[in-house]
């Protein structure tokens, strides 16, 4: 049959683009290269081994799980991304079996049990990370300094003022493999925003909420600030909480996951602000020094409700108050 004479009857969408799952996943993986490279540069070859083990375990688990389910395995890159993200939020000292176990749990229980990509409620990488953190808390909190690998605590555990803000920004501090360098994550995140793969609102509102609330709830509150010096301290502490821990990695690469976060722009803002409030709550009055992974997982649980309340505008209906004549 000649092209053009063929009548295709199909449900919408009728206009299609060349964007594919594999294309998006590849772009996100490319965007993670700066963070990955800086992690390996800072923490050495063991970090590279952790990353490789995690990715291999994620892909292998997905392959086995889909075979057991009697479904076709497609190398769409989503398992590679899950493995990479999990490795980046692990401490650089973990024994190699931990990324393997974590990635296997995240992929098998967090993703495949729900029916695979697109059906999971919770972010698989974070499911793996929290599973490891709650099962082996001691192994998941062994931190070392970059380059010379001396045992130390993370800046968040030591508190504000323990490290210069500039070191925190470029990543020259103790922390998870891919989380320490806000700069490296920012480069990748800016690439994804420029390519319109992720919504700029999520990182802006997420990190912004944490920074804003920390102006009031940190050790130095803006309400007590009397002179310029104390105001500078308040600003510095707010920056400290924005750059420290996993906030940048979570805000750019995990809170922007298509599957487990709300569909609408307003819904995503609610998600981001909610996660920001949870991070501040856990860091200030909670039992853990860091709360990014928990905050995103909890908001993943709220996502179905957010999507139920905030629905996309039906095409052709009135657009709010704009042009409402």
């Amino acid at each position, binding site marked *: 049959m000649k092209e053009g004479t063929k009548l295709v009857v199909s449900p919408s969408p009728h206009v299609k683009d060349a964007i594919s799952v594999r294309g998006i996943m590849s772009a996100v993986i490319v965007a993670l290269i700066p963070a990955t490279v800086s992690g390996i540069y800072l923490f050495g070859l063991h970090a590279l081994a952790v990353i490789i083990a995690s990715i291999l375990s994620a892909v292998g688990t997905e392959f086995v799980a889909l075979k057991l389910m009697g479904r076709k395995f497609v190398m769409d890159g989503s398992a590679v991304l899950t493995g990479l993200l999990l490795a980046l939020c692990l401490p650089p000292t973990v024994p190699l079996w931990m990324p393997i176990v974590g990635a296997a749990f995240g992929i098998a229980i967090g993703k495949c049990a729900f029916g695979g990509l697109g059906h999971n409620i919770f972010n698989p990488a974070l499911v793996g990370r929290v599973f490891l953190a709650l099962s082996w808390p001691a192994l998941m909190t062994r931190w070392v300094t970059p380059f010379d690998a001396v045992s130390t605590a993370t800046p968040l555990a030591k508190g504000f003022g323990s490290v210069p803000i500039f070191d925190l920004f470029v990543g020259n501090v103790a922390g998870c493999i891919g989380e320490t360098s806000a700069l490296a994550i920012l480069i990748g995140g800016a690439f994804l925003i420029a390519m319109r793969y992720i919504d700029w609102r999520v990182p802006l509102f997420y990190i912004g909420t944490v920074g804003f609330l920390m102006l009031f709830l940190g050790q130095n509150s803006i309400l007590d600030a009397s002179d310029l010096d104390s105001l500078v301290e308040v600003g510095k502490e707010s920056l400290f909480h924005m750059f420290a821990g996993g906030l940048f990695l979570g805000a750019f690469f995990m809170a922007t996951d298509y599957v487990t976060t709300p569909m609408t722009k307003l819904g995503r803002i609610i998600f981001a602000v909610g996660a920001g409030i949870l991070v501040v709550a856990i860091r200030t009055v909670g039992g853990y020094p860091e709360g990014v992974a928990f905050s995103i997982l909890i908001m993943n*649980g709220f996502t179905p409700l957010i999507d139920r309340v905030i629905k996309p505008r039906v095409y052709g209906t009135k657009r709010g108050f704009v042009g409402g004549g």
Partner: protein
Amino acid sequence: MENLLTIAIGAILVNNIVLTRFLGLCPFFGVSTRLRNASMMGFAVIFVMTASSIITWAIYQYLLIPLNMEYMRLVVFILVIASFVQLTAIFVRKHSQRLHRAFGIYLPLITTNCAILAVVLINTMVKEYSLLETIVNSVATGVGFLLALVLMAGIRERLDLADPPGAFRGLPIAFVSAALLALAFQGFGGMLL
């Protein structure tokens, strides 16, 4: 004397009756398939929990302790809870047949719901709360139950569209989701105000 806010946050988030203490799982899984039913069930539990806590607290303080009859507490407490459940059941049947059918066996089952009995026992035996603390703890625990139930209903309505493998379809994937939600709620662990 614990701070009332600490009691409230503790009962809603830190020691969430479903996601941390793993109590009251029957209505949690039984009525969480639809959001509307779930929220109604949550409110029913808040009512029964609060009302029976107040009555049992009074009975325990002014009848059982003076008469040295603490050993009768389980019988007395369940009797009080059952009365309030019956009251709720009559009310629901009168006002919404549809809701009554949706609740099914799970409404009378609140009588032996471990969550409510647990709250009553915590109020009187474990923490020995004052009346005000008892009311705050009961309402907050009920709100925590409502929160867990509504979250779960949202997730399960979405899971209706998911495509899990045969062995996980239905209740099993609901249990897996609840487990992962409980994992996430561990983030509230150790939170103190």
